[in-house]
Protein backbone atom coordinates (compact mmCIF):
# COMPACT_ATOMS: atom_id res chain seq x y z
CA UNK A 1 0.00 0.00 0.00
CA UNK A 2 1.42 3.40 -0.96
CA UNK A 3 2.02 6.12 1.56
CA UNK A 4 0.16 9.41 1.04
CA UNK A 5 2.31 12.48 1.09
CA UNK A 6 0.57 15.05 3.24
CA UNK A 7 3.19 17.80 2.93
CA UNK A 8 5.89 18.24 0.32
CA UNK A 9 8.46 20.84 1.27
CA UNK A 10 10.43 21.96 -1.77
CA UNK A 11 13.46 24.25 -1.82
CA UNK A 12 12.09 26.10 1.16
CA UNK A 13 13.92 29.21 2.30
CA UNK A 14 13.13 31.63 5.06
CA UNK A 15 15.05 34.74 5.93
CA UNK A 16 14.33 38.04 7.60
CA UNK A 17 15.84 41.47 7.54
CA UNK A 18 17.62 42.60 10.69
CA UNK A 19 18.83 46.16 10.30
CA UNK A 20 20.48 46.13 6.91
CA UNK A 21 21.41 42.49 7.00
CA UNK A 22 19.40 39.60 5.63
CA UNK A 23 19.48 36.75 8.13
CA UNK A 24 18.77 33.31 6.69
CA UNK A 25 17.02 30.84 8.96
CA UNK A 26 17.18 28.05 6.46
CA UNK A 27 17.52 27.70 2.75
CA UNK A 28 16.74 25.06 0.18
CA UNK A 29 15.05 22.76 2.65
CA UNK A 30 13.45 19.66 1.16
CA UNK A 31 11.40 17.05 2.93
CA UNK A 32 8.13 15.14 2.74
CA UNK A 33 5.77 14.43 5.58
CA UNK A 34 3.43 11.51 5.16
CA UNK A 35 -0.11 11.25 6.29
CA UNK A 36 -0.34 9.60 9.70
CA UNK A 37 3.26 10.35 10.55
CA UNK A 38 4.41 11.42 13.99
CA UNK A 39 7.42 13.56 13.22
CA UNK A 40 9.71 15.09 15.79
CA UNK A 41 11.73 18.09 14.65
CA UNK A 42 14.74 18.56 16.87
CA UNK A 43 17.72 20.81 16.94
CA UNK A 44 19.40 23.56 18.92
CA UNK A 45 17.82 26.95 19.55
CA UNK A 46 17.80 29.10 16.42
CA UNK A 47 17.97 26.15 14.08
CA UNK A 48 14.61 27.07 12.51
CA UNK A 49 12.38 24.41 14.09
CA UNK A 50 9.54 26.72 15.13
CA UNK A 51 9.80 28.70 11.90
CA UNK A 52 9.41 25.48 9.93
CA UNK A 53 6.38 24.56 12.04
CA UNK A 54 4.86 28.01 11.49
CA UNK A 55 5.40 27.70 7.75
CA UNK A 56 3.75 24.30 7.68
CA UNK A 57 0.87 25.69 9.74
CA UNK A 58 0.38 28.59 7.35
CA UNK A 59 0.92 31.32 9.92
CA UNK A 60 4.17 32.37 8.28
CA UNK A 61 5.12 32.68 4.64
CA UNK A 62 8.27 31.34 2.99
CA UNK A 63 10.80 33.65 1.41
CA UNK A 64 11.31 31.15 -1.36
CA UNK A 65 10.21 27.65 -2.19
CA UNK A 66 6.90 25.93 -1.66
CA UNK A 67 5.03 23.83 0.83
CA UNK A 68 2.38 21.64 -0.74
CA UNK A 69 -0.52 20.20 1.24
CA UNK A 70 -1.91 17.15 -0.55
CA UNK A 71 -0.20 18.44 -3.68
CA UNK A 72 -1.65 21.94 -3.41
CA UNK A 73 0.33 25.09 -2.73
CA UNK A 74 -1.50 26.95 -0.02
CA UNK A 75 0.75 29.85 0.89
CA UNK A 76 -0.20 31.83 -2.19
CA UNK A 77 -3.91 31.81 -1.33
CA UNK A 78 -5.65 34.71 0.35
CA UNK A 79 -5.34 35.19 4.09
CA UNK A 80 -9.03 34.36 4.50
CA UNK A 81 -8.55 31.04 2.66
CA UNK A 82 -5.47 30.29 4.73
CA UNK A 83 -7.41 30.98 7.95
CA UNK A 84 -10.21 28.70 6.78
CA UNK A 85 -7.68 26.01 5.88
CA UNK A 86 -6.10 26.22 9.35
CA UNK A 87 -9.50 26.13 11.03
CA UNK A 88 -10.38 22.96 9.17
CA UNK A 89 -7.12 21.04 8.99
CA UNK A 90 -4.70 22.22 11.69
CA UNK A 91 -4.61 22.07 15.46
CA UNK A 92 -1.90 23.97 17.35
CA UNK A 93 -0.37 23.05 20.70
CA UNK A 94 2.04 25.62 22.14
CA UNK A 95 4.76 25.32 24.74
CA UNK A 96 3.12 27.91 27.02
CA UNK A 97 -0.40 26.51 26.48
CA UNK A 98 -1.79 29.89 25.30
CA UNK A 99 -5.17 29.38 26.86
CA UNK A 100 -7.56 32.28 27.32
CA UNK A 101 -7.27 33.11 31.01
CA UNK A 102 -10.87 34.31 31.38
CA UNK A 103 -12.40 31.18 29.85
CA UNK A 104 -12.99 27.84 31.54
CA UNK A 105 -11.40 24.65 30.20
CA UNK A 106 -14.61 23.95 28.25
CA UNK A 107 -14.70 27.53 26.94
CA UNK A 108 -11.12 27.27 25.70
CA UNK A 109 -11.76 23.97 24.01
CA UNK A 110 -14.87 25.38 22.38
CA UNK A 111 -13.05 28.32 20.77
CA UNK A 112 -12.23 26.71 17.39
CA UNK A 113 -15.82 25.48 17.13
CA UNK A 114 -17.08 29.08 17.07
CA UNK A 115 -15.81 29.12 13.51
CA UNK A 116 -18.09 26.25 12.54
CA UNK A 117 -21.79 26.25 11.81
CA UNK A 118 -22.72 24.12 14.80
CA UNK A 119 -25.55 24.28 17.28
CA UNK A 120 -24.80 24.83 20.94
CA UNK A 121 -25.52 21.20 21.78
CA UNK A 122 -23.32 19.98 18.94
CA UNK A 123 -20.50 22.14 20.19
CA UNK A 124 -21.00 20.95 23.74
CA UNK A 125 -20.95 17.33 22.61
CA UNK A 126 -17.65 17.80 20.81
CA UNK A 127 -16.12 19.73 23.70
CA UNK A 128 -17.06 16.99 26.15
CA UNK A 129 -15.65 14.33 23.83
CA UNK A 130 -12.34 16.19 23.54
CA UNK A 131 -12.14 16.81 27.28
CA UNK A 132 -12.96 13.18 27.94
CA UNK A 133 -10.18 12.07 25.66
CA UNK A 134 -7.65 14.11 27.64
CA UNK A 135 -9.23 13.05 30.94
CA UNK A 136 -10.40 16.47 32.08
CA UNK A 137 -14.19 16.28 32.07
CA UNK A 138 -14.24 16.94 35.79
CA UNK A 139 -12.22 20.12 35.22
CA UNK A 140 -14.41 21.53 32.48
CA UNK A 141 -15.48 24.54 34.56
CA UNK A 142 -12.01 25.36 35.83
CA UNK A 143 -10.07 28.33 34.54
CA UNK A 144 -6.39 28.01 33.54
CA UNK A 145 -5.16 29.54 36.79
CA UNK A 146 -7.09 26.88 38.71
CA UNK A 147 -5.29 23.99 36.99
CA UNK A 148 -1.76 22.59 36.91
CA UNK A 149 0.57 23.04 33.94
CA UNK A 150 -0.04 19.47 32.79
CA UNK A 151 -3.79 19.95 32.94
CA UNK A 152 -3.53 23.22 31.03
CA UNK A 153 -1.53 21.51 28.30
CA UNK A 154 -4.12 18.75 28.09
CA UNK A 155 -6.80 21.41 27.69
CA UNK A 156 -4.66 22.91 24.90
CA UNK A 157 -4.48 19.46 23.26
CA UNK A 158 -8.26 19.12 23.58
CA UNK A 159 -8.63 22.56 21.94
CA UNK A 160 -6.35 21.44 19.13
CA UNK A 161 -8.29 18.26 18.39
CA UNK A 162 -11.88 19.36 19.05
CA UNK A 163 -12.39 20.41 15.44
CA UNK A 164 -11.10 17.01 14.26
CA UNK A 165 -8.15 18.37 12.21
CA UNK A 166 -5.85 16.12 10.13
CA UNK A 167 -2.70 17.67 11.52
CA UNK A 168 -1.47 18.57 14.98
CA UNK A 169 1.40 21.02 15.14
CA UNK A 170 3.02 20.93 18.56
CA UNK A 171 5.66 23.47 19.49
CA UNK A 172 7.60 22.16 22.51
CA UNK A 173 4.43 20.69 24.05
CA UNK A 174 6.37 19.33 27.03
CA UNK A 175 8.73 22.26 27.42
CA UNK A 176 6.96 23.64 30.47
CA UNK A 177 6.02 20.32 32.07
CA UNK A 178 7.67 17.99 34.54
CA UNK A 179 8.50 14.46 33.52
CA UNK A 180 5.30 12.86 34.79
CA UNK A 181 2.89 15.33 33.21
CA UNK A 182 4.99 15.44 30.04
CA UNK A 183 4.52 11.69 29.75
CA UNK A 184 0.76 12.05 30.13
CA UNK A 185 0.62 14.61 27.33
CA UNK A 186 2.88 12.54 25.09
CA UNK A 187 0.74 9.47 25.70
CA UNK A 188 -2.28 11.42 24.48
CA UNK A 189 -0.40 12.56 21.39
CA UNK A 190 0.65 9.01 20.64
CA UNK A 191 -2.93 7.87 21.07
CA UNK A 192 -4.15 10.55 18.68
CA UNK A 193 -1.57 9.46 16.14
CA UNK A 194 -2.05 5.74 16.45
CA UNK A 195 -5.77 5.45 17.03
CA UNK A 196 -7.18 8.58 15.44
CA UNK A 197 -4.64 8.71 12.61
CA UNK A 198 -3.72 12.32 13.23
CA UNK A 199 -0.53 13.48 11.58
CA UNK A 200 1.59 15.02 14.31
CA UNK A 201 4.52 17.34 13.76
CA UNK A 202 6.25 18.14 17.00
CA UNK A 203 9.10 20.52 17.64
CA UNK A 204 11.00 19.45 20.73
CA UNK A 205 14.27 19.57 22.59
CA UNK A 206 13.18 16.72 24.76
CA UNK A 207 14.73 13.32 23.85
CA UNK A 208 11.92 11.55 25.71
CA UNK A 209 9.32 13.36 23.63
CA UNK A 210 11.24 12.49 20.45
CA UNK A 211 11.04 8.81 21.36
CA UNK A 212 7.27 8.98 20.93
CA UNK A 213 7.62 9.99 17.30
CA UNK A 214 7.81 7.62 14.34
CA UNK A 215 10.39 9.77 12.56
CA UNK A 216 12.90 12.27 13.77
CA UNK A 217 14.44 15.13 11.83
CA UNK A 218 17.30 17.13 13.22
CA UNK A 219 17.91 20.67 12.07
CA UNK A 220 21.05 22.67 12.61
CA UNK A 221 21.97 26.01 11.07
CA UNK A 222 19.04 25.76 8.72
CA UNK A 223 19.93 22.35 7.36
CA UNK A 224 18.63 18.88 7.96
CA UNK A 225 21.56 17.13 9.55
CA UNK A 226 19.90 13.89 10.49
CA UNK A 227 16.77 11.91 9.59
CA UNK A 228 15.90 8.71 11.32
CA UNK A 229 13.13 6.29 11.99
CA UNK A 230 12.45 6.00 15.67
CA UNK A 231 12.14 2.56 17.13
CA UNK A 232 8.80 2.49 18.83
CA UNK A 233 9.03 2.24 22.56
CA UNK A 234 5.65 1.07 23.68
CA UNK A 235 7.03 0.61 27.12
CA UNK A 236 6.70 4.33 27.74
CA UNK A 237 2.94 4.26 27.15
CA UNK A 238 1.30 4.26 30.53
CA UNK A 239 -1.25 1.72 31.55
CA UNK A 240 -3.96 4.37 31.56
CA UNK A 241 -3.30 5.37 27.99
CA UNK A 242 -3.37 1.73 26.99
CA UNK A 243 -6.79 1.54 28.57
CA UNK A 244 -7.97 4.43 26.40
CA UNK A 245 -6.58 2.71 23.34
CA UNK A 246 -8.59 -0.38 24.14
CA UNK A 247 -11.73 1.59 24.83
CA UNK A 248 -11.51 3.69 21.71
CA UNK A 249 -10.36 0.94 19.37
CA UNK A 250 -12.48 0.72 16.28
CA UNK A 251 -13.73 4.28 16.44
CA UNK A 252 -13.87 6.39 13.34
CA UNK A 253 -11.57 9.32 12.76
CA UNK A 254 -14.15 11.56 14.41
CA UNK A 255 -13.15 12.19 17.99
CA UNK A 256 -15.79 10.67 20.17
CA UNK A 257 -14.04 9.55 23.31
CA UNK A 258 -16.19 7.34 25.43
CA UNK A 259 -13.92 7.28 28.42
CA UNK A 260 -11.11 9.41 29.64
CA UNK A 261 -8.76 7.74 32.04
CA UNK A 262 -5.50 9.55 31.51
CA UNK A 263 -5.01 11.67 34.58
Amino acid at each position, binding site marked *: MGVDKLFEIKSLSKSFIKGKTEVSIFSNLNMDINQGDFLAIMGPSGSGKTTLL*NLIGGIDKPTQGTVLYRGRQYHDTTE*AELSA*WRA*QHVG*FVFQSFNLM*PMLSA*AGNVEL*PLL*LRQLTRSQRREKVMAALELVGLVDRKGHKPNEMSGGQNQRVAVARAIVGDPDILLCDEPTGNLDRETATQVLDILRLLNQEFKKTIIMVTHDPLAAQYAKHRVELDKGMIVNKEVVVAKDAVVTQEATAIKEDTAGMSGELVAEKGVVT
Partner: protein
Amino acid sequence: MNSFFLLLHNIARNKVRWFLNSFALIVAFFLFGFLGSFYSAFESGSELAANDRLIVMNKINFTQPLPYSYINKVDTMDGVKQLTHASWFGAYYLDPTDPLIGYAVDADTYLSVYDNYVLDDELLTNWQQTPVGMLVGRAMAERYGWLIGDKVAVSSNLFSHKSGGQDWEVLISGIYDGKDAQTDTDQLFLHYDYFAQTRTSGGNTIGWMVLNTENAKDNDAIMVAIDDRFENSAAETRTTTERQFNKAFVEQLGSIGLIITAVLSAVFFAILLVVGNSISMTVRERTREIGVLKALGFSRPQIFKLVLSEAMFLTLSSGTIGLALSYFALDAMGKIPQIQSIVPALLLTPSTVLQAVVYMLLLGGITGALPAYRAMSLNTVDALRRS
Protein backbone atom coordinates in the same frame (compact mmCIF):
# COMPACT_ATOMS: atom_id res chain seq x y z
CA MET B 1 -20.42 29.76 24.83
CA ASN B 2 -20.82 31.75 21.64
CA SER B 3 -19.12 34.77 20.12
CA PHE B 4 -21.20 37.09 22.29
CA PHE B 5 -20.03 35.39 25.46
CA LEU B 6 -16.45 35.52 24.23
CA LEU B 7 -16.99 39.24 23.79
CA LEU B 8 -18.45 39.57 27.29
CA HIS B 9 -15.58 37.59 28.80
CA ASN B 10 -13.09 39.83 27.04
CA ILE B 11 -14.76 43.01 28.24
CA ALA B 12 -15.10 41.76 31.80
CA ARG B 13 -11.58 40.38 32.17
CA ASN B 14 -10.45 43.58 33.87
CA LYS B 15 -13.46 44.44 35.97
CA VAL B 16 -12.11 47.70 37.38
CA ARG B 17 -11.35 49.02 33.90
CA TRP B 18 -14.71 47.86 32.62
CA PHE B 19 -16.49 49.53 35.52
CA LEU B 20 -14.63 52.81 35.06
CA ASN B 21 -15.21 52.90 31.31
CA SER B 22 -18.87 52.03 31.73
CA PHE B 23 -19.28 54.59 34.48
CA ALA B 24 -17.74 57.34 32.32
CA LEU B 25 -20.03 56.45 29.44
CA ILE B 26 -23.09 56.18 31.67
CA VAL B 27 -22.43 59.67 33.03
CA ALA B 28 -21.86 61.06 29.53
CA PHE B 29 -25.10 59.65 28.14
CA PHE B 30 -27.01 60.54 31.28
CA LEU B 31 -25.91 64.14 30.79
CA PHE B 32 -26.73 63.97 27.12
CA GLY B 33 -30.24 62.62 27.74
CA PHE B 34 -30.90 64.92 30.66
CA LEU B 35 -29.51 68.20 29.35
CA GLY B 36 -30.66 67.53 25.78
CA SER B 37 -34.22 66.83 26.91
CA PHE B 38 -34.18 69.76 29.30
CA TYR B 39 -33.14 72.06 26.51
CA SER B 40 -35.63 70.67 24.01
CA ALA B 41 -38.41 70.95 26.60
CA PHE B 42 -37.30 74.49 27.23
CA GLU B 43 -37.41 75.23 23.56
CA SER B 44 -40.57 73.24 22.87
CA GLY B 45 -42.71 76.29 23.48
CA SER B 46 -41.07 78.12 20.65
CA GLU B 47 -40.85 75.04 18.45
CA LEU B 48 -44.53 74.31 18.89
CA ALA B 49 -45.53 77.87 18.21
CA ALA B 50 -47.17 78.08 14.84
CA ASN B 51 -45.23 80.19 12.42
CA ASP B 52 -48.39 81.81 11.10
CA ARG B 53 -49.40 82.96 14.57
CA LEU B 54 -48.37 86.56 15.13
CA ILE B 55 -47.97 88.37 18.41
CA VAL B 56 -48.64 92.08 18.65
CA MET B 57 -47.19 93.62 21.77
CA ASN B 58 -46.10 96.96 23.10
CA LYS B 59 -42.92 98.15 21.39
CA ILE B 60 -41.29 98.91 24.77
CA ASN B 61 -41.59 95.29 25.93
CA PHE B 62 -44.23 92.67 26.46
CA THR B 63 -44.93 93.72 30.07
CA GLN B 64 -46.33 97.08 28.87
CA PRO B 65 -50.05 97.06 27.95
CA LEU B 66 -51.82 97.92 24.72
CA PRO B 67 -55.08 99.87 24.48
CA TYR B 68 -58.17 97.65 24.19
CA SER B 69 -59.22 99.65 21.14
CA TYR B 70 -56.36 98.12 19.13
CA ILE B 71 -58.22 94.83 18.96
CA ASN B 72 -60.83 96.04 16.53
CA LYS B 73 -58.31 98.03 14.51
CA VAL B 74 -56.08 95.01 13.93
CA ASP B 75 -58.92 92.55 13.50
CA THR B 76 -60.22 94.45 10.50
CA MET B 77 -56.87 94.66 8.73
CA ASP B 78 -56.31 92.73 5.51
CA GLY B 79 -54.90 89.24 5.88
CA VAL B 80 -55.92 88.80 9.53
CA LYS B 81 -57.95 85.64 9.88
CA GLN B 82 -58.59 85.35 13.61
CA LEU B 83 -57.54 87.47 16.53
CA THR B 84 -57.54 87.03 20.26
CA HIS B 85 -55.85 88.71 23.16
CA ALA B 86 -54.37 87.88 26.55
CA SER B 87 -53.17 89.65 29.65
CA TRP B 88 -50.76 88.42 32.27
CA PHE B 89 -52.64 87.82 35.51
CA GLY B 90 -49.66 87.22 37.81
CA ALA B 91 -51.42 84.24 39.35
CA TYR B 92 -50.73 82.16 42.41
CA TYR B 93 -52.83 79.80 44.50
CA LEU B 94 -52.52 80.00 48.27
CA ASP B 95 -48.74 80.31 48.21
CA PRO B 96 -47.46 83.64 46.82
CA THR B 97 -43.97 82.15 46.46
CA ASP B 98 -45.28 79.57 44.00
CA PRO B 99 -46.31 81.57 40.92
CA LEU B 100 -48.56 80.04 38.30
CA ILE B 101 -48.88 80.70 34.61
CA GLY B 102 -52.24 82.44 34.31
CA TYR B 103 -53.81 84.72 31.74
CA ALA B 104 -56.98 86.72 31.36
CA VAL B 105 -58.18 85.93 27.84
CA ASP B 106 -61.07 86.37 25.48
CA ALA B 107 -62.85 83.06 25.98
CA ASP B 108 -64.77 83.31 22.71
CA THR B 109 -61.70 83.43 20.51
CA TYR B 110 -58.71 82.16 22.47
CA LEU B 111 -59.05 78.44 21.74
CA SER B 112 -59.77 79.10 18.09
CA VAL B 113 -56.34 80.67 17.74
CA TYR B 114 -54.60 78.14 20.04
CA ASP B 115 -55.78 74.87 18.55
CA ASN B 116 -53.30 72.74 20.49
CA TYR B 117 -55.50 72.83 23.60
CA VAL B 118 -57.98 69.98 23.55
CA LEU B 119 -61.34 70.58 25.23
CA ASP B 120 -64.73 69.00 24.86
CA ASP B 121 -67.18 71.32 22.99
CA GLU B 122 -69.66 71.14 25.84
CA LEU B 123 -67.04 72.21 28.35
CA LEU B 124 -65.81 74.96 26.05
CA THR B 125 -69.34 76.37 25.82
CA ASN B 126 -69.70 75.97 29.56
CA TRP B 127 -66.54 78.01 30.14
CA GLN B 128 -67.44 80.63 27.56
CA GLN B 129 -70.91 81.11 29.10
CA THR B 130 -69.71 81.31 32.69
CA PRO B 131 -68.37 84.85 33.34
CA VAL B 132 -66.47 83.75 36.45
CA GLY B 133 -65.46 80.49 34.81
CA MET B 134 -61.84 79.41 34.75
CA LEU B 135 -60.23 77.01 32.30
CA VAL B 136 -57.29 75.05 33.70
CA GLY B 137 -54.88 72.59 32.20
CA ARG B 138 -54.87 68.94 33.26
CA ALA B 139 -51.49 69.13 35.03
CA MET B 140 -52.52 72.10 37.15
CA ALA B 141 -55.95 70.61 37.96
CA GLU B 142 -54.31 67.36 39.11
CA ARG B 143 -51.70 69.21 41.13
CA TYR B 144 -54.33 71.01 43.18
CA GLY B 145 -57.01 68.33 42.97
CA TRP B 146 -59.39 70.72 41.20
CA LEU B 147 -62.54 69.34 39.60
CA ILE B 148 -65.04 70.92 37.26
CA GLY B 149 -67.59 72.77 39.37
CA ASP B 150 -65.14 73.59 42.15
CA LYS B 151 -65.12 77.16 43.40
CA VAL B 152 -61.64 78.40 44.15
CA ALA B 153 -59.95 81.70 44.81
CA VAL B 154 -56.91 82.43 42.67
CA SER B 155 -54.77 85.37 43.60
CA SER B 156 -52.77 87.90 41.64
CA ASN B 157 -49.46 89.33 42.70
CA LEU B 158 -49.88 92.24 40.25
CA PHE B 159 -53.51 93.35 40.52
CA SER B 160 -55.97 94.06 43.29
CA HIS B 161 -59.65 93.20 43.32
CA LYS B 162 -62.15 96.08 43.62
CA SER B 163 -63.70 94.43 46.66
CA GLY B 164 -60.32 94.50 48.38
CA GLY B 165 -57.58 91.95 48.51
CA GLN B 166 -55.99 90.19 45.59
CA ASP B 167 -58.25 87.15 45.31
CA TRP B 168 -60.58 86.35 42.44
CA GLU B 169 -63.35 83.88 43.12
CA VAL B 170 -63.68 81.62 40.10
CA LEU B 171 -65.60 78.53 39.11
CA ILE B 172 -63.66 75.81 37.39
CA SER B 173 -65.68 75.20 34.26
CA GLY B 174 -63.25 73.33 32.04
CA ILE B 175 -60.09 71.23 32.15
CA TYR B 176 -58.13 70.99 28.92
CA ASP B 177 -55.54 68.50 27.66
CA GLY B 178 -52.65 69.05 25.31
CA LYS B 179 -52.76 67.84 21.72
CA ASP B 180 -49.29 66.38 22.33
CA ALA B 181 -46.93 65.83 25.25
CA GLN B 182 -45.17 69.14 24.73
CA THR B 183 -48.30 71.27 25.10
CA ASP B 184 -48.29 73.06 28.41
CA THR B 185 -51.24 71.95 30.57
CA ASP B 186 -49.99 73.75 33.64
CA GLN B 187 -51.80 77.02 32.96
CA LEU B 188 -55.06 78.73 33.89
CA PHE B 189 -57.29 81.10 31.93
CA LEU B 190 -59.78 83.61 33.34
CA HIS B 191 -62.31 85.63 31.39
CA TYR B 192 -60.78 88.96 30.42
CA ASP B 193 -64.11 90.77 30.97
CA TYR B 194 -64.41 89.51 34.54
CA PHE B 195 -60.79 90.43 35.20
CA ALA B 196 -60.96 93.89 33.60
CA GLN B 197 -64.21 94.82 35.36
CA THR B 198 -63.01 93.80 38.80
CA ARG B 199 -59.42 95.01 38.88
CA THR B 200 -58.50 98.34 40.40
CA SER B 201 -55.80 99.24 37.90
CA GLY B 202 -54.96 98.62 34.30
CA GLY B 203 -57.98 100.38 32.89
CA ASN B 204 -59.07 99.55 29.41
CA THR B 205 -55.93 97.72 28.36
CA ILE B 206 -54.83 94.31 27.29
CA GLY B 207 -51.44 92.56 27.46
CA TRP B 208 -50.96 91.56 23.86
CA MET B 209 -52.80 90.29 20.82
CA VAL B 210 -52.36 86.98 19.04
CA LEU B 211 -53.60 86.50 15.52
CA ASN B 212 -53.69 83.95 12.74
CA THR B 213 -53.16 85.13 9.21
CA GLU B 214 -54.93 83.99 6.08
CA ASN B 215 -51.64 83.03 4.51
CA ALA B 216 -48.29 82.66 6.25
CA LYS B 217 -46.56 84.04 3.12
CA ASP B 218 -48.11 87.43 3.89
CA ASN B 219 -46.82 87.50 7.46
CA ASP B 220 -43.98 89.91 6.81
CA ALA B 221 -46.24 92.41 5.09
CA ILE B 222 -48.92 92.11 7.79
CA MET B 223 -46.37 92.58 10.58
CA VAL B 224 -45.09 95.73 8.90
CA ALA B 225 -48.62 96.99 8.27
CA ILE B 226 -49.66 96.54 11.90
CA ASP B 227 -46.60 98.28 13.29
CA ASP B 228 -46.97 101.07 10.73
CA ARG B 229 -50.61 101.49 11.71
CA PHE B 230 -49.63 102.35 15.29
CA GLU B 231 -46.44 104.24 14.58
CA ASN B 232 -46.16 107.50 16.50
CA SER B 233 -49.15 106.57 18.66
CA ALA B 234 -49.08 106.48 22.47
CA ALA B 235 -48.54 102.77 22.37
CA GLU B 236 -46.43 101.73 19.43
CA THR B 237 -46.45 98.05 18.64
CA ARG B 238 -43.93 95.41 17.77
CA THR B 239 -45.26 92.46 15.83
CA THR B 240 -43.38 89.19 15.51
CA THR B 241 -44.19 85.60 14.79
CA GLU B 242 -44.95 83.62 17.92
CA ARG B 243 -41.92 81.44 17.28
CA GLN B 244 -39.62 84.45 17.27
CA PHE B 245 -41.35 85.77 20.35
CA ASN B 246 -40.83 82.54 22.29
CA LYS B 247 -37.25 82.20 21.12
CA ALA B 248 -36.47 85.72 22.23
CA PHE B 249 -38.08 84.96 25.58
CA VAL B 250 -35.98 81.81 26.05
CA GLU B 251 -32.80 83.49 24.90
CA GLN B 252 -33.15 86.10 27.62
CA LEU B 253 -31.93 83.36 29.92
CA GLY B 254 -28.67 83.10 28.04
CA SER B 255 -27.54 80.90 25.23
CA ILE B 256 -28.57 77.69 26.90
CA GLY B 257 -28.14 75.67 23.75
CA LEU B 258 -24.56 76.85 23.31
CA ILE B 259 -23.69 76.09 26.92
CA ILE B 260 -25.19 72.61 26.75
CA THR B 261 -23.49 71.88 23.44
CA ALA B 262 -20.13 73.07 24.80
CA VAL B 263 -20.43 70.98 27.97
CA LEU B 264 -21.52 67.86 26.09
CA SER B 265 -18.83 68.27 23.44
CA ALA B 266 -16.16 68.48 26.13
CA VAL B 267 -17.57 65.43 27.90
CA PHE B 268 -17.73 63.37 24.72
CA PHE B 269 -14.27 64.38 23.59
CA ALA B 270 -12.81 63.37 26.95
CA ILE B 271 -14.73 60.09 26.85
CA LEU B 272 -13.52 59.43 23.32
CA LEU B 273 -9.90 59.72 24.43
CA VAL B 274 -10.35 57.75 27.65
CA VAL B 275 -12.33 54.88 26.19
CA GLY B 276 -10.28 54.79 23.00
CA ASN B 277 -7.05 54.61 24.98
CA SER B 278 -8.49 51.98 27.26
CA ILE B 279 -9.61 49.74 24.40
CA SER B 280 -6.22 50.14 22.70
CA MET B 281 -4.55 49.12 25.94
CA THR B 282 -6.83 46.08 26.27
CA VAL B 283 -5.93 44.97 22.77
CA ARG B 284 -2.19 45.49 23.38
CA GLU B 285 -2.41 43.32 26.47
CA ARG B 286 -4.12 40.62 24.47
CA THR B 287 -1.71 40.57 21.54
CA ARG B 288 -0.67 36.99 22.20
CA GLU B 289 -4.26 35.83 22.57
CA ILE B 290 -5.13 37.47 19.28
CA GLY B 291 -2.21 35.58 17.76
CA VAL B 292 -3.65 32.35 19.15
CA LEU B 293 -7.09 33.13 17.72
CA LYS B 294 -5.51 33.75 14.33
CA ALA B 295 -3.55 30.52 14.55
CA LEU B 296 -6.79 28.69 15.38
CA GLY B 297 -8.27 29.99 12.15
CA PHE B 298 -10.00 33.24 13.08
CA SER B 299 -9.82 35.42 9.97
CA ARG B 300 -8.86 39.09 9.84
CA PRO B 301 -12.48 40.29 9.53
CA GLN B 302 -13.49 38.07 12.45
CA ILE B 303 -10.76 39.56 14.66
CA PHE B 304 -11.76 43.06 13.54
CA LYS B 305 -15.40 42.33 14.31
CA LEU B 306 -14.57 40.87 17.71
CA VAL B 307 -12.61 43.93 18.89
CA LEU B 308 -15.02 46.42 17.32
CA SER B 309 -17.97 44.60 18.89
CA GLU B 310 -16.37 45.01 22.31
CA ALA B 311 -16.21 48.79 21.85
CA MET B 312 -19.72 48.86 20.40
CA PHE B 313 -21.12 46.74 23.21
CA LEU B 314 -19.44 48.93 25.81
CA THR B 315 -20.82 52.18 24.38
CA LEU B 316 -24.27 50.80 23.57
CA SER B 317 -24.82 49.08 26.91
CA SER B 318 -23.43 51.94 29.01
CA GLY B 319 -25.15 54.54 26.85
CA THR B 320 -28.48 52.77 27.23
CA ILE B 321 -28.08 52.67 31.00
CA GLY B 322 -27.17 56.38 31.01
CA LEU B 323 -30.21 57.22 28.89
CA ALA B 324 -32.48 55.09 31.09
CA LEU B 325 -31.21 56.93 34.16
CA SER B 326 -31.85 60.26 32.47
CA TYR B 327 -35.39 59.09 31.68
CA PHE B 328 -36.08 58.38 35.35
CA ALA B 329 -34.41 61.61 36.46
CA LEU B 330 -36.44 63.65 33.97
CA ASP B 331 -39.61 61.86 35.00
CA ALA B 332 -38.93 62.64 38.66
CA MET B 333 -37.99 66.26 37.96
CA GLY B 334 -40.98 66.76 35.69
CA LYS B 335 -43.24 66.11 38.68
CA ILE B 336 -41.79 68.99 40.70
CA PRO B 337 -44.21 71.96 40.38
CA GLN B 338 -41.45 74.56 40.32
CA ILE B 339 -39.78 72.78 37.42
CA GLN B 340 -43.11 72.27 35.67
CA SER B 341 -43.74 75.99 35.64
CA ILE B 342 -40.45 76.55 33.75
CA VAL B 343 -40.37 73.47 31.53
CA PRO B 344 -43.85 72.00 31.33
CA ALA B 345 -43.12 68.93 29.22
CA LEU B 346 -39.88 67.54 30.59
CA LEU B 347 -39.45 64.14 29.00
CA LEU B 348 -36.90 62.09 27.08
CA THR B 349 -37.96 62.68 23.51
CA PRO B 350 -37.58 60.08 20.74
CA SER B 351 -35.35 62.48 18.82
CA THR B 352 -32.96 62.72 21.81
CA VAL B 353 -32.91 58.92 22.08
CA LEU B 354 -32.24 58.59 18.36
CA GLN B 355 -29.48 61.16 18.53
CA ALA B 356 -27.96 59.37 21.53
CA VAL B 357 -27.99 56.01 19.72
CA VAL B 358 -26.20 57.62 16.77
CA TYR B 359 -23.58 59.02 19.17
CA MET B 360 -23.21 55.61 20.85
CA LEU B 361 -22.57 53.98 17.49
CA LEU B 362 -20.16 56.73 16.47
CA LEU B 363 -18.31 56.59 19.77
CA GLY B 364 -18.11 52.78 19.61
CA GLY B 365 -17.00 52.91 15.99
CA ILE B 366 -14.35 55.57 16.50
CA THR B 367 -12.91 54.11 19.72
CA GLY B 368 -13.00 50.53 18.43
CA ALA B 369 -11.98 50.90 14.79
CA LEU B 370 -8.29 51.67 15.27
CA PRO B 371 -7.60 48.96 17.91
CA ALA B 372 -9.65 46.54 15.81
CA TYR B 373 -7.62 47.37 12.73
CA ARG B 374 -4.37 46.93 14.66
CA ALA B 375 -5.54 43.60 16.06
CA MET B 376 -6.61 42.44 12.62
CA SER B 377 -3.28 43.44 11.09
CA LEU B 378 -1.12 41.73 13.71
CA ASN B 379 1.40 39.30 12.33
CA THR B 380 0.44 35.95 13.86
CA VAL B 381 4.02 34.81 14.45
CA ASP B 382 5.02 38.10 16.06
CA ALA B 383 1.87 38.09 18.18
CA LEU B 384 2.57 34.57 19.43
CA ARG B 385 6.11 35.57 20.43
CA ARG B 386 4.81 38.46 22.54
CA SER B 387 5.00 37.72 26.25
